[in-house]
């Protein structure tokens, strides 16, 4: 029976049932449902297909293979960890929305055709917008609206692309698509929006930090990784993705450096990490794809861990502004330690998860001869270490003491963080388990002397530089100490340039936004003048005016019909009585209106 139910729908059903359950039962159910779905996935394994006829098509509601299962496993694991982390959140829309969101994303991963994918794509968009709104502030409301508009827009493009694809290929099956057709291009754009491609990314940094402490953790896991899966399925080996991905890894760094809201810093670094996966997909080699999937798997965990730790800080200290925090390690030593596990993981320290996943993408890029891309990725790796590895834990837990004294994070949060940290370290120490579930056979050994040494070099030198500059007092503590980063690319560019570049980009964006706002306002004003309640198209017309239209249309039809047999006199005679009658009626009603 359970096997008949798509795994995602188990979560959706649990989510919908949640508000009806007694309060005490809600959190256990929210945690048990992902475990059940996980067990089901293990049980059905690859090669399972569930089909159903609807809309006149045969829909593949479930299709499992190694690619979708890898994402399925991590989605259920993430949903479980989220449920533990949010154990105390029992009221409101957020817990059911989180489960429905996770469930629809999970179901979307197993969708075997574009129609099924589209349905879950849209449902997950709506559910996740509810999570943003659950943040509760006015900013969260606005961000949620923008978020939903973007997500639904992506769904519209997906629907249009699927329809075109159906017309081109005669099939809705979700297989490799490629960019060669208009349908493919629309699908690419739809996935790209959800994946936060450069210039399509703003919704992410806009919305995620506005959700609640628990909501952001949920949001960070699914939406973008669903699109990574969709890209891997439909566009593996598309060269454009390599360049897009490289840009994605590099540009958020500038923003992350100057951002003060630590959850927003993490949102930027989320964007940057997605870039590595996009590059891997663009390379399209076995190792590139494996790297992308492995990195997505590892990334969901350490990013969740980082967001969880910042969520705990937000809960206890009431803020995640870098300038207002500091010295929290005294109050929250466990959270600080777990946050540093996440930081080490995202920075790809040996024995931590990203070390065994991200390097597959880098090696693959180097093997394919993309030296420039490889350099960009190395630069981006250093940037990650800087803003997620050093900046986030340093500002929150160390730096100057802000004087905030609060309680340690609640037990359920610590449990969730500890479990997540355990997985991060587990993957780093025993990469074989992760490699075993990757879509392609793995022929890669992460722990070679050169790899470990090179990575340590990168990390140790940055650490040295950091402490040296700190001791010499060259950089005053707050914002500028941030810029003591690891590798020489970054140092040579310098914070000043980063800031200038960011400021320039910001100004360009602002100017563009202002121009489009003015254009939009002018357009909206014109539309309202025409269509608004007093507009010419919305007014109640006089009876004669209405009749006049009938006469005009009749005249137009007759003229068009007779266009090739010109006998204007006949037409004129035919329509004249009506014109006179209509004009008379119109004049009459005008006169009466004036009275």
């Amino acid at each position, binding site marked *: 029976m359970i096997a008949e139910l798509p795994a995602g729908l188990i979560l959706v059903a649990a989510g919908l049932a949640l508000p009806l359950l007694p309060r005490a039962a809600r959190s256990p159910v929210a945690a048990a449902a992902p475990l059940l779905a996980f067990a089901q996935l293990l049980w059905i394994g690859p090669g399972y297909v569930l089909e159903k006829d609807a809309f006149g098509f045969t829909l593949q509601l479930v299709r499992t293979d190694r690619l979708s299962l890898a994402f399925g496993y991590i989605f259920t694991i993430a949903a479980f960890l989220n449920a533990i982390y949010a154990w105390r959140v029992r009221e409101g829309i957020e817990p059911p929305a989180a489960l429905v969101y996770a469930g629809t994303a999970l179901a979307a991963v197993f969708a075997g055709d574009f129609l099924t994918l589209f349905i879950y794509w849209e449902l997950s968009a709506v559910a996740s917008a509810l999570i943003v709104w659950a943040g509760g502030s006015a900013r969260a409301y606005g961000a949620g609206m923008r978020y939903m508009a973007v997500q639904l827009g992506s769904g519209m493009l997906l629907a*249009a692309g699927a329809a075109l694809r159906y017309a081109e290929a005669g099939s809705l099956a979700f297989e490799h698509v490629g960019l060669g057709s208009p349908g493919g291009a629309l699908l690419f754009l739809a996935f790209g929006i959800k994946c936060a491609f450069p210039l399509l990314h703003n919704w992410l940094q806009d919305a995620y930090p506005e959700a609640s402490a628990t909501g952001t953790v949920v949001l960070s896991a699914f939406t973008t990784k669903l699109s990574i899966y969709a890209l891997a399925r439909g566009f593996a080996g598309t060269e454009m993705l390599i360049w897009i991905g490289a840009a994605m890894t590099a540009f958020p760094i500038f923003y992350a450096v100057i951002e003060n809201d630590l959850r927003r810093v993490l949102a930027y670094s989320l964007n940057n990490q997605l870039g590595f996966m996009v590059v891997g997909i663009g390379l399209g080699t076995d190792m590139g794809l494996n790297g992308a999937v492995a990195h997505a798997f590892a990334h969901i965990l350490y990013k969740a861990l980082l967001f969880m730790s910042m969520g705990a800080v937000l809960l206890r200290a009431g803020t995640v502004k870098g300038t207002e925090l500091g010295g929290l390690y005294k109050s929250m030593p466990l959270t600080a330690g777990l946050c540093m596990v996440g930081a080490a993981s995202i920075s790809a320290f040996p024995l931590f998860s990203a070390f065994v996943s991200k390097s597959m993408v880098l090696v693959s890029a180097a093997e394919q001869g993309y030296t420039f891309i490889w350099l960009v990725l190395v630069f981006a790796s250093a940037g990650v270490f800087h803003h997620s590895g050093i900046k986030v834990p340093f500002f929150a837990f160390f730096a100057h003491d802000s004087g905030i004294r609060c309680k340690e994070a609640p037990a359920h949060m610590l449990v969730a963080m500890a479990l997540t940290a355990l997985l991060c370290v587990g993957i780093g120490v025993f990469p074989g388990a992760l490699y075993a579930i990757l879509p392609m056979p793995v022929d890669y050994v992460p722990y070679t002397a050169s790899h470990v040494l090179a990575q340590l070099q990168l990390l140790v030198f940055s650490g040295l530089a950091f402490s040296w500059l700190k001791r010499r007092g060259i950089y005053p503590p707050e914002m500028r100490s941030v810029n003591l980063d690891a590798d020489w690319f970054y140092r040579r560019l310098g914070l000043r340039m980063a800031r200038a570049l960011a400021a320039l980009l910001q100004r360009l964006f602002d100017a563009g936004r202002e121009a489009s706002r003015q254009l939009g306002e002018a357009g909206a004003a014109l539309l309202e003048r*025409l269509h608004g309640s007093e507009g010419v198209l919305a007014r*109640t017309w006089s*009876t004669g005016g209405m009749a006049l239209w009938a006469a005009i249309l009749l005249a137009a039809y007759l003229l068009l019909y007779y266009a090739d047999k010109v006998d204007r006199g006949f037409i004129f005679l035919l329509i004249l009585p009506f014109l006179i009658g209509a004009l008379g009626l119109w004049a009459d009603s005008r006169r009466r209106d004036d009275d």
Partner: protein
Amino acid sequence: MSAEQLPALVVVAPLVAAPVALLARRALPAWMVATAACGFSFVAALALAVQVTSGGAVSYALGSWPPPWGIEYRVDVLSAFVLVLVSGVATVVAPFAWASASAELERERLYLFYALYCLCVAGLLGMTATGDAFNLFVFMEIASLSSYVLIALGRDRRALLSAYQYLVLGTIGATFYVIGIGLLYLMTGTLNMADMAARLSDISSTRPVLAALAFITVGVSLKLALFPLHLWLPNAYTYAPSAVTAFLAATGTKVSVYVLLRFYFGVFGTRIVLEELPMSQILLALSVVAIVTASLVALWQADLKRLLAYSSIAQIGYITLGISMASREGLTAAVVHLFNHGITKGALFLLVGGVALRAGHAGFDRLQGLARTMPLTSLGIVIAGLSLIGTPGTAGFVSKWYLVLGAIEAGRWWLAAFIVATSLIAVAYIWRFVEAAYLAPLGGATPRAGEAPAAMLVPAWILVAASVWFGFDTSYSVQGAARAAALLLQ
């Protein structure tokens, strides 16, 4: 009761019920007669639908005069499809009318209301069932005259002016139609539509026939409210009693679309209408303008009922858009949207009727925080609204899907993009309701009397459920429409 008599019985039941209701002179018996007649017609229409699907068209010669001399009632796949929609909606609206009309009308006029309702139903069913062009005019007048009076019964004083304007425009439409029929009779000497089609094939390009086509096109376009002949519709729908709006919005314009399809494809023939004349281009242009302007006007309306009226004009644009494609996909989309929009808009107007009962009218100032006092009504409006937008899992999605397919099949990518893009305007105007009902705090003018009575909620929710059901199970709606499209293109 044998199958041959069903085409007549479908129409006769409400036609006979009207004078009976009048003679009863009391509300309750009149209502019971009206409801029973509608229900009987519905059952008969369903039986007919089964019959024509398996055994082909059913013909009934009135007074045993064989066609083409006598009046023929002829029901094929398309007319059975429309008969089921009209009689089905009439049956669902009748119980709703008991609570709604009792609240909105004076008690001593109620029996008149039910008599007129029966007449209107009979007129619309007759227009669909008959195979005789002049008989169609008679039923068109029966349906129109009764609907003028029904609209004028609205309690807002502006209802009278709206009904008067509708009367003038509707009469012009009917006159144009009958002039067209006159010209056709002149040229063919017959009024039977099938006979007419056979005789027209030789003389289809002559001047009087073309004039007839123009008159019938404009006349019927007035009745189905095609832009720019839609101007009578917003006020008529806004100020009519709730039950009347729901019934007319779901069926009135739809039957006129049916008449247009009949004449274009059944009488004049595709060759002259779509190949020799620029009809499809004109229809396409008018549909596109209708969709855009009416949707945008809907966006700025201050009253939900009026907003939905403008949305109806836009949705009719989608139907005529499908007709203008003149392909199998396009016609399937048009016929299936005729059905799907009928049930969706019926559901919406019934629910808004519930709001109007509690609040007096459905202005947006009365809807602030409505979800708290009328949760079922609000939820129903949102679900039916999703169907109006064309969200997957609702009936509206199915029609839009076929419309997009038709556009792509014809190689018109821009049209496919246009259909998807204009759905966004529908998202915006439905969102206005969501924002008012769910996100705004409870307003001072919002009704606090609680949900609408069950007699109104249940019929409304039947149509809401139908608009979800037909989003998943398309075996009836799409297959019926596809069969009808195949028949039209023969």
